[in-house]
């Protein structure tokens, strides 16, 4: 959105030199060492503070023993099974099942394309799931017209376990946790195939709990520090030991530090809600009235697509769009809401709604759009 101004190539080198030359010599009073008992030994490159003599920095703390404070109970085996459902890179937690990429495609077109675009190619304002490339990860938009890096599942994600785990827990967006293991495998197979991920050099046709472990993601080695294995934590510590690794390179210069150019806002983003205002006056009386049951159901099951027209749904409040839909007559519109039409899944995917409830919601949507 920002256009770089070519005139900005300024006195860079000399300015930077000046900054380092005047660095250091802190003149502000340091924190009182008896209060802030700091040691620079934190894993993240920062300090930790001692809890000593009933104090932790400027806080008083209760230093009585907490031994024997013991509430709760042991989880049952079934409770553990129900909740310990994460999926790890080594395949721990993979459900038993299988699914083909082709079945995944059918499912994808029904449940996901409306937001993530056909074949996961995006274009609807929601995350793009396919189509990136490893080469693109080096892109830097430091000049006008340059392309952004394209971070997608196939081009960026280090582990396939993340994908099936996320699909299991979080998708489909409006009805998370509704997929069977077979559907999870099918969807994962499809998205990996579209993202160009292969097993043993071949396109993925079918996935199950066994061949899943053979997947190596193209960008697996694209992340640092290396957190795996017995040295993982130590690698993290080593990474944070060097401030240059994470840009903590500020220096304290007090005078003649160097002048640089001033970049102003090119295209200001003003699309904020509510609009900016610091005025202190009485708000406009808004049409009050209790929120109806239909509105609540609408917020829960339909608003995700109908709040805006981004997904091709008639947006609630858009008079024209609803007049057009109502041209077919109320019965047909109700029928479409119940049975689905185009990108509109039957009952908006909320199959627990009765037909009567859907009709009430449609009535609310129509009336809110007059």
């Amino acid at each position, binding site marked *: 959105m920002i256009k770089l101004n070519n005139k900005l190539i300024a006195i860079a080198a000399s300015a*930077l030199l000046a900054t380092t030359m005047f660095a250091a010599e802190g003149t502000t009073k340091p*924190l009182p060492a008896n209060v802030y008992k700091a040691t*620079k030994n934190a894993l993240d490159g920062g300090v930790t503070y001692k809890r000593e003599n009933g104090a932790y920095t400027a806080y008083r703390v209760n230093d009585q023993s907490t031994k024997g404070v013991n509430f709760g109970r042991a989880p049952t085996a079934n409770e553990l099974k129900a909740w310990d459902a994460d999926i790890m890179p080594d395949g721990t937690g993979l459900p038993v099942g299988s699914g083909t990429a082709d079945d995944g495609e059918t499912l994808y077109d029904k449940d996901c394309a409306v*937001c993530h675009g056909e074949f996961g190619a995006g274009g609807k304002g929601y995350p793009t799931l396919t189509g990136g490339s490893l080469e693109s990860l080096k892109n830097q938009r430091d000049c006008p017209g340059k392309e952004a890096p394209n971070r997608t599942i196939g081009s960026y994600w280090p582990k396939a376990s993340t994908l099936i785990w996320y699909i299991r827990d979080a998708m489909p967006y409006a009805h998370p946790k509704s997929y069977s293991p077979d559907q999870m495998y099918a969807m994962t197979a499809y998205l990996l195939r579209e993202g160009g991920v292969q097993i043993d050099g071949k396109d993925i046709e079918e996935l199950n709990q066994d061949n899943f472990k053979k997947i190596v993601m193209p960008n697996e080695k694209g992340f640092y520090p290396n957190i795996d294995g017995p040295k993982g934590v130590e690698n993290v510590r080593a990474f944070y030991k060097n401030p240059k690794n994470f840009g*903590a390179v*500020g220096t304290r210069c007090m005078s003649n530090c160097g002048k640089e150019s001033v970049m102003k806002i090119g295209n200001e983003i003003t699309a904020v809600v509510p*609009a900016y205002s610091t*005025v202190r*006056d009485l708000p406009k009386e808004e049409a009050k009235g209790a929120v109806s049951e239909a509105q609540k159901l609408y917020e829960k099951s339909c608003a995700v697509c109908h709040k805006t027209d981004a997904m091709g749904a008639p947006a609630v409040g858009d008079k024209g769009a609803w007049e057009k839909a109502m041209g077919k007559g109320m019965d047909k519109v109700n029928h479409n809401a119940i049975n689905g039409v185009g990108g509109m899944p039957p009952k908006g995917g909320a199959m627990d709604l009765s037909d009567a409830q859907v009709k009430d919601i449609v009535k609310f949507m129509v009336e809110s759009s007059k």
Partner: protein
Amino acid sequence: MSNISENNLETTTNKEQSSRRDFFKRTAAYSVSAIAAANLLAPVKLSADDANIINHVEWGTTLGDELNKYPYGIPSAYEHNVVRRTSSLLSSAGDMHAAVSMTPLHELEGIITPNGLHFTRTHNGVAHIDPNKYRLMIHGLVEKPIVLTLEQLKKYPAESRLLFLECPANGAAEWKGPQFNSLQFVKGMMSNAEWTGVRLKTILDEIGLKPTAKWMLAEGSDGSEMSRTVPVEKVLDDAMIVWAQNGEAIRPEQGYPVRLMLPGWEANLCVKWLKRLEFGAEPWYCKEETSKYTALMASGKAIQHYYPLEVNSIITTPCPEKPWSDLKKGDMVEVEGIAWSGHGTITGVDISLDGGNNYVEAKLKGLVLPKSWTRFSYMYKYEGKPLLIQSRAMDDAGFVQPSVTQEKAIMGLEGVYHRNSICTWEVRQDGSVHNVQVRTDNCPK
């Protein structure tokens, strides 16, 4: 957005109060220049007697509300513009289930963010948890796995800490240059509150951590089951499980009834609607520590497990929303701001009025606490001249806030997260304030 010309403002200023009201009415939406106008109109500028002093006021000549009108109190109706704001550009297609809302930093005083103004990021909407059905499970590489109800959890000895929470994407829209002309959108993905709960170590001392435990999975129970991997070393240092925010139950948007608190680390790691903590020997690779919250460098490789929010600061007065349009030459005025560091405690802040060429020391004021907002102050005699005003903070881990040029030389422009370089407000001749960046760019041919 209505655009009001400077000429318009002049004429409005000279008229009486009634026409000022009309002016407000006519201007349904305020652009930043309109905000400046509102300040120009302060009654202080009028030489005639002030009717608000001469005549009895409405609220002094009528009976007020019954004191129990609002069993849970609400702000004055006049404060209705002091709210969190969103931008569809900081979401998917304007979908407010997976988006972020910004704290109105320009309206905050001190270091406590009121609960209704705390910034919010959700990945699958705001979950509403029935506290009676709430359970927390702690298991994995521990001697005695447990499940706790909310009431049981709250029986553990409580501690309170003032801590900031900041989304590591705070300011991420501005790596390539300034885009928003407001403090709220430049730095509003953060808040500071008093959090109360139990140290995780207190619980772990009892249930026994196995020596093989190196990592902890923290999992939320919202629709996205938002989860992250945390090193055990942090867990044992200062991690907390918290159930209260500024003295009352955590708000749904902040994870009611329980969230994880990792002081100084990415707010995303402080998992909300906390459901499960599992200890393990290997990290998990959640979606929010692979696809997102990793910082892509120019090398094409990305930093993962990028935990602490580095030393940072921002000037809150003046700012684009609260300009100096009503100052006259010679007025003494306070430059105020907030500094914070996830690496430790703020030790000092320097102020520049000339875009970073020269600095002077500001004073810290109020409570100076680790991993908490710290207020700073600098008294300035306004000269009515253009300024490029900046703040630069330092912490007790020895870090100094970098310039834009210093930071991007290492981090590049595409890393999205952890942008903590020095911010600049341009104060123009008319006292209006604008978001700019002082930086050196080089477009390689």
